[in-house]
């Protein structure tokens, strides 16, 4: 690790969908670090590569780009890193251009454009297995001669598929930098091309292809047979709806076993602590605070992973852009673009990556609209809350082939989507005034999702989630335990001790605001730490109820406690509240960062709070009427 500063740096650069990230995963394995480029929220993925001969490289996976003539922030970052003009980023020692061997006509133009910069580079022909299968014969020696740079074959999805690249790196890259680090010779000046340049380059691409590649008439039957159904206006939309529905059913049904196991372990651990520790403040902190709080959130890891598994697999297979194609016009009616679909789908996992993914939308107004409605997509952090309340109040019964709990969950997701569309429609009238923007979306060939890439993606998500549990959630749980424990109940108190604590006082103050929508003081308390991370609300409820219960068996089993303590209208009202869930500080911080102003995060917080209150109020009042009155 001490040699990192001396390790040569190489960047992977290529078109979107060229398998660049798969190659990055193959080269660096799990030795990756994901961060942000300074000032913007484009993912900066760096990893360590050690060649068989022991040479060390720092590998940077640049965002996919069609051209150095950038039209999105992603492409700008790629251009600036390569040119060495990005602040805080050293110009790379070596550029590895990654090209899809089945699609050289599109990919080689970028290679030629980059070559003009006069930097050390080589070309990795990726997916050569697929190219061979399609009968594409590439004369690597000829291509090498025509391009004037080393060319290697790679198969990013196969173990050992980068061996040619590794050998080439070992043999052609000097072990010692020819210049001291930080004093690299400048790249050739880059000027935005005009049409004449582009057409000259395109002619050059054709000439090179004619000299080095023999390609049979492309056999596109397989993809087109699938696309005839998948892109069909009726069947395509039905398949999309079915896919999403299956995804949400799976989140609930596949996750139940691992969730039960986690719950059981947490309870056992709490009980173990209770029996082996003397009754003390420390025991209360550990059992009621940390174990109940963190355990209550940890239990949702399986659901979050299943959700991400679906999103990653759909992305890897080439289906997601097709979904964007299908929805483009429909989303256009409310002023969005099909491109908004991917950020919005990511927002189902968490609004923050969704808001960050919106940067691939090159049009600012489209991007802003997408950012503003991203929090209305039900993020996985709300899943714990939904799961808890649904589990406590909706009976586990079959409705036809479906599960009633799954149906309610689906309805909540739909409610989020519908309100997002309504908000977008309002934005369309007020902000974007119906201007037209380009779509220009590539629909890549279908491929089978690849196990290692899915696994690495899932590991990354699990790490992020667990770090959140470890940091924010743990800290807040402890803070909340403190607020809920001190000061203790006065002599001769009748109610549970928490009622007399700081948290109790705060909750009772907030209850004035929230009583009209049916929230009791326990819920009001739980909403406060929920501002830092929504799922904390569950941990907070766990802590609040654990401390307000009088018995000893308080470690888990929050659901039944709630079922006994809340009325049905209160439960529904809280569900409605969380459809809008305005209180996520991390989301607002991300919006601030992405829009570079306080205006939009404040606007977002305001409109979400207003909608949440309104929706909960209506839900509560209607539910009260339907259930024949009564008070929460």
């Amino acid at each position: 690790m001490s040699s990192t500063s001396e390790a040569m740096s190489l960047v992977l650069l290529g078109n979107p969908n060229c398998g660049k990230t798969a190659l990055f995963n193959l080269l660096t394995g799990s030795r990756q670090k994901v961060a942000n480029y300074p000032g913007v929220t484009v993912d900066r993925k760096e990893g360590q590569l050690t060649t068989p001969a022991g040479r060390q490289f720092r590998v940077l996976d640049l965002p996919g780009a069609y051209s150095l003539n950038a039209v999105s922030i992603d492409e700008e970052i790629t251009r600036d890193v390569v040119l060495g003009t990005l602040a805080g980023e050293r110009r790379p020692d070596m550029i590895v251009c990654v090209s899809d061997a089945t699609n050289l006509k599109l990919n080689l133009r970028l290679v030629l454009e980059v070559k003009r910069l006069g930097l050390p580079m080589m070309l990795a022909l990726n997916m050569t297995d697929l190219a061979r299968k399609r009968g594409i014969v590439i004369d690597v020696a000829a291509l090498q001669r025509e391009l004037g740079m080393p060319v290697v074959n790679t198969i990013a999805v196969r173990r050992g598929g980068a061996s040619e690249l590794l050998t080439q790196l070992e043999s052609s890259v000097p072990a010692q930098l020819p210049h001291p680090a930080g004093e690299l010779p400048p790249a050739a000046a880059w000027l935005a091309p005009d049409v004449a340049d582009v057409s000259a380059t395109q002619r050059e691409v054709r000439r090179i292809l004619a000299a080095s590649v023999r390609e049979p008439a492309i056999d596109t039957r397989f993809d087109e047979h699938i696309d005839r159904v998948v892109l069909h206006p009726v069947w395509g939309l039905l398949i999309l709806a079915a896919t999403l529905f299956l995804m949400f059913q799976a989140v609930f049904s596949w996750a139940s076993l691992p969730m039960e196991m986690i719950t059981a372990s947490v309870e056992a651990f709490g009980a173990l602590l209770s029996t082996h520790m003397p009754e003390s403040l420390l025991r209360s902190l550990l059992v009621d605070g940390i174990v109940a709080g963190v355990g209550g959130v940890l239990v949702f890891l399986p659901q979050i992973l299943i959700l991400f598994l679906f999103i990653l697999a759909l992305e890897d297979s080439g289906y997601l852009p097709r979904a964007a194609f299908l929805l483009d016009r429909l989303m256009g009616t409310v002023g969005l673009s099909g491109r908004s679909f991917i950020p919005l789908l990511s927002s189902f996992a968490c609004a923050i990556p969704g808001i960050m993914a919106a940067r691939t939308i090159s049009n600012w107004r489209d991007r802003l609209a997408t950012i503003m409605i991203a929090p209305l997509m039900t993020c996985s952090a709300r899943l714990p809350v939904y799961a808890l309340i649904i589990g406590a109040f909706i009976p586990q019964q079959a409705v036809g082939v479906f599960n009633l709990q799954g149906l309610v969950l689906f309805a909540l997701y739909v409610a989020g989507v519908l309100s997002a569309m309504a908000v977008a429609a309002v934005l369309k009238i007020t902000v974007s005034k119906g201007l037209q923007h380009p779509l220009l979306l590539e629909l890549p060939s279908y491929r089978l999702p690849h196990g290692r890439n899915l696994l690495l993606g899932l590991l990354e998500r699990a790490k992020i989630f667990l770090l959140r549990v470890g940091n924010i959630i743990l800290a807040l749980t402890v803070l909340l335990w403190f607020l809920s424990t001190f000061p203790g109940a006065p002599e001769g108190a009748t109610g549970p001790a928490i009622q007399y604590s700081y948290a109790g006082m705060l909750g009772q103050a907030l209850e004035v605001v929230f009583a009209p929508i049916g929230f009791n003081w326990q819920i009001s308390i739980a909403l406060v730490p929920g501002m830092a991370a929504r799922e904390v609300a569950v941990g907070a409820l766990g802590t609040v109820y654990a401390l307000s219960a009088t018995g000893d068996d308080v470690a888990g089993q929050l659901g039944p406690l709630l079922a006994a303590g809340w009325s049905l209208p209160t439960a529904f009202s809280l569900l409605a509240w969380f459809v809008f869930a305005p209180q996520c500080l991390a989301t607002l911080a991300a919006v601030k960062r992405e829009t570079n102003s306080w205006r939009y995060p404040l606007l977002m917080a305001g409109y979400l709070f207003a909608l949440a209150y309104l929706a909960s109020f209506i839900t509560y009042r209607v539910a009260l009427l339907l259930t024949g009155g009564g008070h929460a």
Partner: protein
Amino acid sequence: MNGPLELISLFDLPRGHEATVSCGDFAAFGERSDRELALRLYEIGFVDGERVRVVARGFPGGEPIAVRVGSTIFALRRFEAERVLVAPLRNGRAKA
């Protein structure tokens, strides 16, 4: 490509029909955003003589369209597709 062919906009090409792109200087005019769009279309392969085929149309209004160009498929909205002029092939069989 024998004889003068009638040029139509890519958006008007029926699904399944083949055509060749024919628009040498389609990027030379217009506002900056128009030029940028034209340049990007050029960069992703909508260049003179390139074969294209509409493989799918969206709903409603037949928009956007999915166009095969080379071995890639790109989805374009109506106003984007209208920037590209094509010459339909005489025997541009409708495979569907």
